[in-house]
């Protein structure tokens, strides 16, 4: 074979070799381009690197920083089983690895065991026993855009002098490609995770998302957003559909809010009622902001979320109703106290008598309020009210009282307050002037339910006996007024108050429909 032929053969071999390498680089680039996850991309790079360098094995070590400091974990391996590495601790930043993990540059050695940096660190001072046999060594750092060392590509061969300067140059290119691929994959992963968690949050919060292209007027709504407006996921729901769904009274306010957000690029935050296709009324809260700013500073695109706040609105309305009711009750109670003060002052111009009588009446009122509060101001038991008003005078078990009832019943608040006060007045009068002023007196308290249907009545009788002789009072006091006018008027009752010589007697006929609780 002549020299020319020899050169020709050499060139042909070199050319074939270059073609093979170019082909190999191309496959790495393709694998990176089409790769969809980090693992497969890194594996493709390592596999391609082994093929390119004709190494016996190759690996990519990932640079991980955590609380324990920097360490390196095996990410991808080619040409050797994974177990070949699992027995050893991961590489540390020894003299031999430092240039790679510090991102200084490529380390290429025809025989790593002869390298002056080799074997400097304990405990092995060289490769651990049973390590893959490495003599030829080639390592390149994989450096990200901001200079961060993402990891290192390592290739080895049991024979010496296997890696050429040409291969080293190519590997630098592969490492740069790998860096781009890894960073791209990381970004994609982050975006995927964020999107997934956003979708999870939207779903968990029953939040719909929407977007409005201000220029084209195209409105896009997520499935949950459509659901908020009573539309199926596959239904068309454009901007005009949205406007039409909003309660006509709330449209101007929504229009003003969205126009302001578009004109100034400001936040869009509005609550409105919507009428669902089936006629149901719901409350929706919508929040949004400019997703893209127009040249004039306004919004080019608006994006945001929508939330069904019907339950919250209902709760607010309930609360407002309760507050109004409470206010009403407090004001009426204050007026009642005012009335009690005024009435008491008429009967007792003397300050000491006044304060005693006034306080007793306030306590009587308060007792009834306590009983009503126990039952959410819906009702109070007749027997409980009688017992409460007799308590300051010895209580219902006091032998001076004879209770004769045909069963308990629930009174509505108005009847409870009126009867409570009436009983208080009767008892106070009995203690001061009547049967309870002496040890021999008795009070019989009788309750009967009589009549049928609309004529059902509660008949209450208060009968005093055994006390000092009774004469009609010269002045009509609060008690008499309360019983004869108040009960008669407010509870549509027939009340007869008799000042019999043997004792006061009071008979109250209260229509059931007026005194019993509605429930």
């Amino acid at each position: 074979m002549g020299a020319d032929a020899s050169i020709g053969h050499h060139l042909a071999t070199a050319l074939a070799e270059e073609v093979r390498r170019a082909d190999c680089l191309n496959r790495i680039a393709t694998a990176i381009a089409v790769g969809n996850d980090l693992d497969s991309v890194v594996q493709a790079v390592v596999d391609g690197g082994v093929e390119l360098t004709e190494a016996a094995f190759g690996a990519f070590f990932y640079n991980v920083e955590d609380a324990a400091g920097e360490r390196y974990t095996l990410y991808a391996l080619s040409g050797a089983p994974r177990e070949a590495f699992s027995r050893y601790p991961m590489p540390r930043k020894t003299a031999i690895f430092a240039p790679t993990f510090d991102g200084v540059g490529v380390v290429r050695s025809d025989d790593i065991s002869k390298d002056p940096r080799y074997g400097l660190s304990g405990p092995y001072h060289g490769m651990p026993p049973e390590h893959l046999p490495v003599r030829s060594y080639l390592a390149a750092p994989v450096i990200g855009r901001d200079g961060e060392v993402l990891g290192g590509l390592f290739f080895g061969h049991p024979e010496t002098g296997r890696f050429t300067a040409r291969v080293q140059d190519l590997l630098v290119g592969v490492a740069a490609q790998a860096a781009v691929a890894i960073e791209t994959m990381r970004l994609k992963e982050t975006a995927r995770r964020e999107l997934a968690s956003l979708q999870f949050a939207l779903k968990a919060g029953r939040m719909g998302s929407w977007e409005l292209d201000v220029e084209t007027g195209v409105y896009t709504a997520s499935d949950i957003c459509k659901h908020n407006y009573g539309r199926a996921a596959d239904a068309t729901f454009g901007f005009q559909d949205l406007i039409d769904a909003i309660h006509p009274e709330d449209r101007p306010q929504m229009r003003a809010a969205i126009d302001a957000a578009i004109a100034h690029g400001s936040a869009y935050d509005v609550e409105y009622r919507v009428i669902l296709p089936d006629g149901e009324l719901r409350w929706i809260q919508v929040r949004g902001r400019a997703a893209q700013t127009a040249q004039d500073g306004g919004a080019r695109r608006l994006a945001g979320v929508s939330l069904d706040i019907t339950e919250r609105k209902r709760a607010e309305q309930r609360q407002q109703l309760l507050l109004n009711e409470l206010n009403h009750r407090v004001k009426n109670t204050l007026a009642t106290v005012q009335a009690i003060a005024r009435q008491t002052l008429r009967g007792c111009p003397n300050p000491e008598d006044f304060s005693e009588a006034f306080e007793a009446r306030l306590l009587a009122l308060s007792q009834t309020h306590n009983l009503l509060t126990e039952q959410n101001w819906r009702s109070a038991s007749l027997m409980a009210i009688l017992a409460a008003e007799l308590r300051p005078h010895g209580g219902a078990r006091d032998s001076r009282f004879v209770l004769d009832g045909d069963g308990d019943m629930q009174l509505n608040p108005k009847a409870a307050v009126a009867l409570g006060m009436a009983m208080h007045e009767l008892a106070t009068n009995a203690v001061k002037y009547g049967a309870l002023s002496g040890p021999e007196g008795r009070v019989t308290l009788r309750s009967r339910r009589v009549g049928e249907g609309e004529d059902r009545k509660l008949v209450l009788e208060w009968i005093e006996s055994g006390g000092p002789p009774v004469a009609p009072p010269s002045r009509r006091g609060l008690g008499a007024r309360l019983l004869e006018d108040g009960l008669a008027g407010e509870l549509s009752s027939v009340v007869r108050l008799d000042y019999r010589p043997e004792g006061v007697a009071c008979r109250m006929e209260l229509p059931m429909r007026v005194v019993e609780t509605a429930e």
Partner: protein
Amino acid sequence: MTPIPELAGLRVLVVEDEMMVSMLIEDMLTDLGCHVVGPAARLEEALSLAEHAELDCAVLDVNLGGQSTFPVADLLRAKGAPFAFATGYGDAGLREVDRDSLVLQKPFREVDLAKVLRSLAKSISGV
């Protein structure tokens, strides 16, 4: 408080379902020299008095045990008898048509009642 000449003999319908409050208004009116019509604690009674009784003006509780007294207000308005509302609700409980009505906020003093009655009396003489 002493009777006020311009209120003397003024016939005032009282519609109020709280027993003690009703007595209070009655007492105040009597002190001022007015004549009490009612008081009515129930709507039917109030409507009947508003329609048939001789009266000059009225003081209406807005709410009678869950029933509003607006029908009474309408009847009085049709008759040309001026009225004022007495309420613990503030203006919140009033209809649009009653927004210009005089309102006594519970609890109120006798002077407050006298002031409202003077306005009512004035609108009677003005007719």
